[in-house]
């Protein structure tokens, strides 16, 4: 009997130490990311004035093809395309890809812009469902509509890549609102280091609560919905800390599918976006890393904080849960497809830092944290764990989370300053504290659900019901 209780006690201690160890590793990762994010900002500080930016880069900016895949977007597509056509950039083309919409998306576009079928010689380098037709208008030389059979977002982007002729492609979601000067800001690394830069991502901000006028965020306001508020804090951490820091460490594994610019020839060299994954954005970036590392060619995949695109986020638990499970599934699919790169010294910092961070934060992290929530109180109830230590450990994990969120607010104030009022900072701090009680646990649960879906090889995107931007 004594042997049994010893075994139980040792087992509980081992699990407790594992949870603590993973927690400490995550904390260490966040501190390193924060440090590198601050270094990145000091090395490449933001350029405030758009006119200065224009005078500096307009003459040198390469042509960009913006690819906007659209599926059943009949209500918003015209406003989205209007806002894309009004971007401030010297030389660009908007390629809207109607991905076999079941609604009137195609008709809306044809009728509103007076489009008619046009011939165009295009490449067949990356695979996608058949293109049914191309539409254009001599009055709008910057707009090209591609109508194709349904194949999903990655498939639609591939069609756009084939049809594009510009050296750079900008992949966006059709409902993303890009700030007018975001393109000229995001091409900065392509101008400053054209020989090395293969991709660049910008910041995604949350438009819930903001006033939108003619496809632009006219007035920034915080949403009233708690879930949307928490996501603002999450996005600030993800973009201004994690991506900026990882980019500076040259270990960035993801550029958001909502707004990213890529060298077209590099994307083609890796076969474009991959089918059969819901994490096609991460998959593409990892493929680029693999390609250039295998060829031993110097390259950069950059994240720049200043170019901003706005998106609507879910305000209901069901939709948010689906989205987070899907993101988790996407990350795991990419991790599994490229598992030979993980911790492989041949892939340098991508294998060690990039994949190491996915392993700790995305693969092991949610499991251990959720396991900890379930097992540690159980061990305490069985008298195997000291309550004092349990509480002290939970307190330090939570307060560290708060500290990281507040540190990201500093980066926000220094770099972007998109929060209009001083009291918004206080509100977001309160939200960052409150997220530890309930939301954090729920978020881990969703991620574990994503892991379960991944193990069951579940496919599909689920539904994303949009509330729509608040129009002026």
């Amino acid at each position: 009997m004594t042997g049994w209780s010893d075994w139980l006690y040792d087992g509980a201690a081992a699990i407790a130490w594992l949870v603590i160890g993973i927690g400490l590793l995550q904390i260490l990762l966040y501190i390193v990311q924060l440090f590198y994010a601050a270094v990145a900002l000091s090395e490449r500080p933001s350029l405030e004035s758009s006119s200065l930016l224009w005078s500096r880069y307009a003459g040198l900016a390469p042509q960009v093809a913006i690819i906007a895949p659209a599926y059943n977007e009949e209500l918003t597509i015209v406003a989205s395309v209007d806002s894309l056509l009004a971007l401030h950039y010297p030389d660009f083309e908007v390629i809207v890809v109607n991905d076999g919409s079941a609604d009137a998306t195609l008709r809306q576009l044809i009728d509103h812009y007076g489009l008619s079928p046009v011939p165009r010689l295009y490449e067949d380098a990356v695979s996608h469902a058949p293109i049914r037709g191309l539409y254009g208008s001599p009055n709008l030389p910057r707009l090209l509509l591609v109508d194709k059979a349904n194949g999903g977002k990655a498939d639609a982007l591939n069609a756009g890549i084939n049809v594009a002729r510009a050296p750079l492609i900008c992949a966006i979601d059709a409902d993303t609102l890009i700030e007018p000067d975001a393109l000229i800001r995001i091409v900065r690394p392509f101008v400053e280091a054209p020989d090395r830069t293969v991709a660049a991502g910008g910041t995604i901000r949350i438009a819930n609560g903001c006033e939108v006028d003619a496809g632009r965020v006219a007035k920034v306001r915080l949403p009233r919905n708690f879930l949307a508020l928490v996501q603002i804090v999450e996005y600030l951490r993800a973009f201004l800390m994690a991506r900026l820091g990882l980019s500076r460490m040259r270990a960035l594994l993801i550029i958001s599918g909502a707004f990213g610019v890529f060298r077209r020839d590099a994307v083609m060299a890796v076969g474009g976006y991959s089918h059969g994954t819901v994490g096609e954005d991460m998959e593409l970036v990892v493929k680029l890393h693999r390609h250039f590392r295998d060829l031993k060619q110097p390259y950069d995949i950059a994240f720049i904080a200043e170019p901003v695109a706005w998106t609507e986020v879910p305000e209901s638990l069901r939709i948010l849960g689906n989205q987070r499970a899907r993101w988790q599934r996407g990350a795991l699919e990419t991790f599994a497809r490229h598992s030979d790169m993980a911790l492989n010294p041949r892939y340098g910092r991508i294998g060690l830092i990039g994949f190491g961070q996915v392993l700790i934060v995305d693969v092991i992290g949610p499991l251990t944290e959720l396991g900890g929530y379930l097992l540690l109180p159980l061990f305490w109830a069985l008298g195997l764990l000291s309550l004092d230590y349990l509480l002290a450990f939970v307190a330090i994990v939570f307060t560290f989370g708060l500290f990281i969120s507040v540190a990201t607010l500093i980066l926000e104030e220094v770099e972007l300053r998109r929060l209009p009022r001083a009291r918004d900072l206080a509100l977001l701090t309160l939200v960052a504290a409150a997220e530890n009680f309930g939301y954090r646990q729920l978020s881990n649960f969703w991620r574990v659900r994503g892991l379960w879906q991944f193990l069951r090889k579940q496919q599909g995107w689920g539904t994303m019901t949009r509330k729509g931007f608040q129009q002026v």
Partner: protein
Amino acid sequence: LTALALLWLGSWLLTGVALAVVIGLILARLFAERRSRRGETLRRVYVAQLLGTAPIGAVPGRPADDILTDVSLELARMVRGEDREALLARAKTLRVPERLRRRLRRGRVQVRLGAAEALAHFHDDESLAALRGALDDGSSHVRLTAALALAQHDASLPVSMLVERLGIGTREHSRIGIELLREIGRHRPEEVAALLWQPNVPAGAKAAAAEALMSSAHYDVVPLIAELALNSSDESAELPAYIEALGGLGHPAAAAAVLNELHSSQPRVRAAAAAAAGRIGIFEAAERLAALVGDAHWQVRFQAATALSRLGPNGRKLLEKTAADGEPLARQAAATILAEQALER
């Protein structure tokens, strides 16, 4: 201290720091908002003084150098001709160049960069000397921008010296380097052209010089660039830039080099040569271009078909013939380009 006490102390410390930071951020924001309200008033006063609608002199409260400098530059970018000269003269009276020189010496990278750019508006000796000093700045962005500002006043160092100092084509691959050579080429094209034949100039700098001269009417360089192209290996990273430069210059003296590169083993070079053949109007290239319309690489097919359509009636005839009885790939490329061109007309 026990481990337990340390954990709690750590938690309290983190909470305290987080709170202090938020309070600090809020106070800084409130202070900035107050400053910005005062700044608006000062901006209006400075705008009036700089535009000459109010006499230069006192301002309400303490003068703000930053606002004055920023307003001067914003206005300088907006106005042209005599108005601009008058504006800059008033800015000088308000000692804006002096402030910019101080910024160029002391500010953060972004501030120094802005100052270097802004000093391009002023051409007094002290400002030019400050810009020359900035060629040794720790930031490559500031060095390039200072060089560009000097070039805008034709006060640049000798080009070969500048190429070496800034590492153009070796350490520095920014497209601003090409812009710099283009700017220098506006005043001293021979000097930029000389880069092409000097043996000690790195190949990357030669390619940058070729691209910089592409939009000039300096046709003397065509034989030089053509020779560089002919002497480059197929795999050379610079070869496409040479061919593109020849196409941009559009001079028939480039014909031999372009015709040669239409047979390159590298698709990128073949595509560049096809585009150049169309721009220059090399009729001898027509047969080869017709063959390239069926090339395995899309970019080559596209450029070859487009080039043929530019080669007058003979080129169009060949394209129509390819569309009618070429190989499937060539037929499709030729027919689509013909249809595209018909729509454009």
